[in-house]
């Protein structure tokens, strides 16, 4: 590994760590500014003053801000992320690891739906501009961006669950992987719109490059030109856009988990919000920040490995 690449990786990782630290500190401070009292949310407002004081002490809410911050950083350090206010026997980390696989599966399925739709459609639309494929690509892009997830979810449930009866309804315990299809479509629709547009645009640009013309002139088959010569080169910018959509996808999972009554990071986060369960809110934001920074770091590194020019910037 060259020194330049090492330095590139080093600065990127450092910056990523700083970002996580910044986000987490910000959330710690913002959440502490709550005028609503978490003790009220846990014990109810009928609780006796003695119980309230005891609870406050047990949760360290009476400690100075700096001490609370120290405790919080300590809990991040030992990997527990503290204990839930409402379920004292559970660490935040264990609550999150229980539901995280569900959200990860949903997010990955959404990405899969979007890529499976966007790559072929975008490629064919670029290769045959003005054709039916192009029209289809434009349709997907328009539909995906115009129909919000909070409406698409109920529509899909009605169409496939109630009218056609081909896919399980929300809350079906033994639905298995089939239960993932509609939620994945709900999250992935907007993403596939963005990616289809990007793929089409990137492919149109690449298809006019000299090396594509050269390959055609050599008599390489159209399919091979498209997939091997053009798509491979068009993929990089599309990947970046895909990674940049991670935030939108995670927002989508919060909404979709509610619509489809699914367990997950989003529903854990919303429940914690309504109960003012501060450690869980902090923990969820930390995990999301780590995810976001991790994915962006991975994309940066991949770019740096593939394209040496990037390392200089």
């Amino acid at each position, binding site marked *: 590994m060259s020194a330049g690449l090492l330095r590139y990786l080093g600065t990127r990782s450092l910056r990523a760590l700083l*970002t996580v630290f910044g*986000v987490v500190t910000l*959330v710690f401070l*913002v*959440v502490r*500014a*709550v*005028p*609503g009292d978490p003790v009220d949310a846990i014990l109810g407002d009928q609780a006796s003053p003695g119980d309230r004081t005891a609870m406050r002490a047990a949760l360290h809410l009476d400690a100075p801000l700096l001490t609370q911050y120290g405790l919080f950083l300590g809990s991040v350090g030992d990997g527990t992320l503290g204990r839930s206010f409402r379920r004292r026997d559970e660490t935040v980390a264990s609550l999150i690891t229980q539901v995280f696989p569900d959200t990860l599966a949903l997010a990955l399925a959404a990405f899969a739906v979007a890529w499976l739709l966007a790559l072929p459609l975008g490629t064919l639309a670029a290769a045959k501009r003005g054709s039916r494929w192009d029209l289809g690509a434009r349709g997907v892009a328009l539909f995906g*961006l*115009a*129909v*919000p997830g*909070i*409406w698409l*979810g*109920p*529509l899909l*449930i*009605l169409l496939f*669950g*109630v009218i056609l009866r081909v896919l399980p*309804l929300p809350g079906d315990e033994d639905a298995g992987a089939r239960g993932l299809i509609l939620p994945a479509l709900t999250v992935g629709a907007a993403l596939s719109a963005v990616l289809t547009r990007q793929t089409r645009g990137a492919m149109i640009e690449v298809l006019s490059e000299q090396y594509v013309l050269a390959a055609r002139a050599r008599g390489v088959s159209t399919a091979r030109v498209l997939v091997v010569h053009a798509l491979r080169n068009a993929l990089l910018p599309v990947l970046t856009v895909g990674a*940049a959509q*991670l*935030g*939108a996808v*995670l*927002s989508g999972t*919060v*909404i979709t988990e*509610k*619509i489809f009554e699914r367990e997950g990071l989003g529903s854990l*986060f*919303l429940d914690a*919000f*309504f109960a*003012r369960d501060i450690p869980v*809110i902090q923990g*969820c*934001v930390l995990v*999301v*920040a780590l995810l*976001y920074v991790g994915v*962006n770091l991975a994309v940066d590194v991949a770019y740096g490995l593939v394209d040496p020019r990037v390392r200089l910037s």
Partner: protein
Amino acid sequence: MKPLRARLRKLPLGVVLVLLFALAALLGPLVAPHDPAQIDLDHEYAAPSFAHPLGTGDNGTDVLSVLLHGARLAGTIGGLVVALSLVTGTLAGALAGYRGGLIDHAVTGTADLVQSFPAVVLNVALLAVVARPGVLHLVVALVSNGWVIYARVARGQTLAIREREYVQAARALGMSESRILLRHILPNLGGPLVIQATSGLGAAILAESTLSFLGLGPGKSASWGALLDQGSAVLLRFPHVALFAGGTIALTVLGFNLAGDWLRDRLDPRR
């Protein structure tokens, strides 16, 4: 001069939808057939009928009336969010583009961070600060990520304008930096920001609906997102509530997006 009817017929769909929305927001509460909070337990979740054109929802409230009242709330929140985002975003973006250096790094860095972080998570974390979110809290939470897009557009435009002759002439004449920014840069940012604000209104209305749908909206008022939330809970038995509420949100968002595209085509002859 073409006759009015011919002109009306040529109005693009986006503009028609936006005008309909504006009418509903302005006059909706006046023409609504019922009080949106009126309870009628005998007719809960009734299908559309003559008395209730779009049926009834939770506790027998009239769906059409809730939608008409909700249009005003959506318009108010959307308008406030876009206005505040536009002002803060434009100032930050223009300053970043004009000054460059450290300010530019700070603004673009923050914008990058905010834009790629999940909007819903950021909004919810911010709303956790208040005990009972009201309209103003919602607006502040939505502006916290709404300003970014305007900052980007303003920064890009400023970078281009900065090098124009009239700005250089002003600089050569010894005009102060802040005066150049106020008198020569800001007034010329107009077009692209107006286009962005048009589709931005749709985005702000959708964001408000989404937060209300998640149960974070201003409690008492009639809201599209809250109606959709009620409708989703009874989706399998009484689909009309969710269908009408979601359809209204979707058509409004679509309208503002199409109107934004239409404006861009009109204002930018190169496209």
